[in-house]
């Protein structure tokens, strides 16, 4: 599971002023549940997830992934986590199988076991036909599958999907949703970030809406709809975007 408390990450802007990309956010993600991070581009979702993935260091606050602090034990955290992001590319000059094998070996999986696991995973993700295709010849959907296979190969308890459907067609996206649901049913703790409301509404048990680096609303989807008196998450989001001050008050008041 993941505990995030008052997490802040500041960058310097072009004029050398510190600007928080993530501003004191807190949330918890539980095993067997999908936690959604919803927000427009630049809301701080990717930064938050990169901190969880130990690629960035927080300016302040804590993030604990499956019992390990991301600052103190980054290597342990990475072992507990599968990270799928629009930014994590795959090697152009490696085949799908080689790529997944490489990351499996980096996770210290024994050679024989790893080969079996790859076969199983490729079948499950319907990747068997593309096992010898080079990265440079793959379509976006194929690449995304390899990314997912890479993230799942060591069977991590925590999975992070960052804008994972961007660039995918609807069929490929549906396959991804199925994988996420499958992993949820296997008891994984999943963090799913997206700017597409319908995806989040469909997949996530609990959602945090981010705006300008802050979590402006948090709760289960029905809770959010009820609090804001809207019919769908998209309208909730518009309502929040129009009245960020009110959102903050509600968040402080504790919509739980």
């Amino acid at each position, binding site marked *: 599971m993941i505990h995030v408390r008052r997490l802040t990450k500041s960058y310097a802007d072009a004029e*050398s002023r510190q600007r928080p990309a993530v501003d004191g956010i807190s949330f918890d993600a539980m095993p067997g549940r999908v936690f959604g991070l919803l927000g427009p581009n630049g809301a701080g979702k990717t930064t938050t997830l990169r901190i969880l993935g130990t690629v960035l260091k927080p300016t302040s*606050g804590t993030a604990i992934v499956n019992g390990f602090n991301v600052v103190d034990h980054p290597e342990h955290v990475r072992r507990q986590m599968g990270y799928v992001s629009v930014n994590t590319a795959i090697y152009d000059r490696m085949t799908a199988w080689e790529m997944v094998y490489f990351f499996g070996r*980096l*996770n*210290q999986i024994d050679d024989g076991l790893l080969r079996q696991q790859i076969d199983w995973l490729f079948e499950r993700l319907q990747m068997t036909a593309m096992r010898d295709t080079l990265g440079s010849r793959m379509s976006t959907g194929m690449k995304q599958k390899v990314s997912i296979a890479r993230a799942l190969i060591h069977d991590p308890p925590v999975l992070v999907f960052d804008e994972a459907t961007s660039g995918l067609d609807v069929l490929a996206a549906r396959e991804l949703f199925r994988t996420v649901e499958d992993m949820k049913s296997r008891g994984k703790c999943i963090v799913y970030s997206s700017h597409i409301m319908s995806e989040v509404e469909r997949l996530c048990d609990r959602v945090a809406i981010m705006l300008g680096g802050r979590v402006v609303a948090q709760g289960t989807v029905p809770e959010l709809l009820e609090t804001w008196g809207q019919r769908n998450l998209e309208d909730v989001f518009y309502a929040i975007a129009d009245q960020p001050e009110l959102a903050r008050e509600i968040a402080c008041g504790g919509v739980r």
Partner: protein
Amino acid sequence: MNWTNCRLVFRRELVDQMRDRRTLFTVFVMPLLLYPILGALMMQLASFFREHPTTVWVVGAENLPDAPPLLDAETVATGLASDAGRRLIRLQIDDSATGFLQRWAGVLEQEDVAGRQKLFAEMRKRGADLVAIVPRPMVMEHSRLLDEQPDVLLVFDSSNDNSRVAAQRWQFVMASWQQRLLTRLFHPQGSGEPGADDSASGENRAESSGSPVAGLTASLDLARPSSARAASWSRILPLLVMVWCLTGAFYPAIDLCAGEKERGTLETLLSSPASRSEIAIGKLGSVMVFSIATALLNLTSMGITAALFLSSSGFSGAAGMLQGPPTVSAIGLVVLATIPASALFGAFSLAAAAFARSSKEGQYYLIPLIMVTMPLMVIPMLPSVRLEMGTSLIPVTGVMLLFRNMIEGNWSQVLMYIGPVTVVCIACCTVAIRWVVYQFNSEEILFRPSERFAVGNWIRQMFRTRDVGPSVGHAVMCGVMILILKFGSGVFVSPSQDWNGFASQTFILLLVTICVPAMFMTVLLSSKPLKTLMLDRFSLTHAVLAVLLAICLNPLLGWFSGLVMRLYPVSDELTHMAAGLLGVVDSAPSLLAILFVFAVAPAIFEELAFRGFILNSFRSLSRPMVAVVLTSVLFGAAHGVIQQSIIAFVVGMVLGVIAIRTNSLLPCILFHATHNGLSVVLARWDQYGIAGIDWLIQRAPDGTWGFSPLTAGVMSLIAGLLLAWFLRPEWKPAGSVGNIVAGQPGIARRISLWLNSWFPSRQVSR
């Protein structure tokens, strides 16, 4: 044609390129910095042009004619070579040749390989690099021109560096001597200078200058063909290996670091459980493989081509120059040399590549990398550079010299220096790898999307931060400005030869090249100049302790200077220049004048610039020790000559510690003035010293004045205690002047932050 569109496109491209840091760097910054930096590097290199004297064993000196003289008492006669050249030839004179000729007749007359080695061993035992034998009395008549029997026989070993150099020098001397001989033969009454109007002598002169030493001398090369071959290849092969390894390492390194960043796969790799150092070492390994492969394939291809080319066409002359193909052992050693070379260049290239955000940017770093490593590759090619403790400690140079000695078969030398060379090599690789790891951890490098650079923003930022104080970038800028001005003044200003001119010149140069840039930047960038320069506070205790430390450190620093001078001996030219300088200083009217020029003025000006502006700008890093190190590096670099730079670095470290501890510039000025002053006074103790204090100040065996051993010991002890006090653990910069500039770090700040990462952090990041 719509000219408005042309103009619009033109303006857009212009603005676009002006916002590209790489274009700005290559078009504007590079040309401005390149030549001063190259010039400064060449000046540093010049201190390695130190010619070693060679010894000639003259056998049968009594057979030489009295006039024109060939030999002086200790060296060759005046006029046969320049004064400097004559100083480099030492003589061992045996009057009679009979014994030598009897003993070595077998070697001199026939091919006796074992005998030749024995003869060379005998020469080495006597410390001689060359034997010049005059077997019988020389005939001073015209008939000697027809005589084909040589008068002087030179015996040397061309596979030995010293012996070869000795032979070259001696042949030059013989050529000038032969000119004189001929002149004397044709103008027995002449002054010794050949008459220009005499056509007969003119002809003969022409003949003789065509082959100046022919007829007069014959030479016997003791080198075995294989070792002569090894010697001729021993210089070329290490250089080739270095160049091949560098080119082989660079492009894979760029692709493996900057290229992966660009393609996004680096983030994928970094989010795997592999640690940063594991990733860096893995990448280094693969870069090394490509580097070694490049070198070996080049070697093979070059070998095959050369063999085919030379055997098929009339290029035997070229082959003769290198005395045949390299020996098998030389090739084996070259293969071995690719390992350290590829490790070094692989690590350097990775360090450059890890710094780049894209492969295009990475390729721009090839030029600076070559600029840094080329001089290191050139040093071993200089004729007088040998494998010594000093040279073995220089990265790249040490490796090249080590392998040169291996190829030449000087295994005793190799065994002596393989340790230091390996240690330096490993240390360089470790530093480079740590840098790569740091870059992998550096978010600015990994995720900064924009490479745009706006001059306007930069200038605005410079003035906006004015109220709080200068930053790391400003410190480096000031340092570079001082270096360029110092270099420029070194080139364009020749030292005056009388004291008044010299003193005012030194004073003005210190003021203009060091003090003015720092003052200018202080006024421009700081709203509280006095505070920035630490002139706003003063403590008497600190002042007294600083003076005491300067006095007590004198013996230790003197010993250290001696050590540096032994490791990296000063070139003859510099010694000569220094001697000229001493002559000027001797004509100073009083000790006070000398102290003012050499102690007071440098202390004030250099402290204002280095411990004042630069150190305090570096203090924006909030790690005082790193600020001290960086300031001392610049302080050392500003001293121009490598030996002085090393010593100045150490003195700069002490000064930096004092500055940080006391937060005041005055103790630094006092320390600096006392340190310089004491050196000046001790150097002229003969002239200005106080008699009757032998217990305190004595003359050392080498003629210099210094503190007596007992006093020096006590002083060093006190110095240690004082330093410990200045360095005491709870030291905390009492209200650092510099601000912690929040901003996108520039190159300088990134390097300093990386250095920071070597010291345990006191701040808790969460």
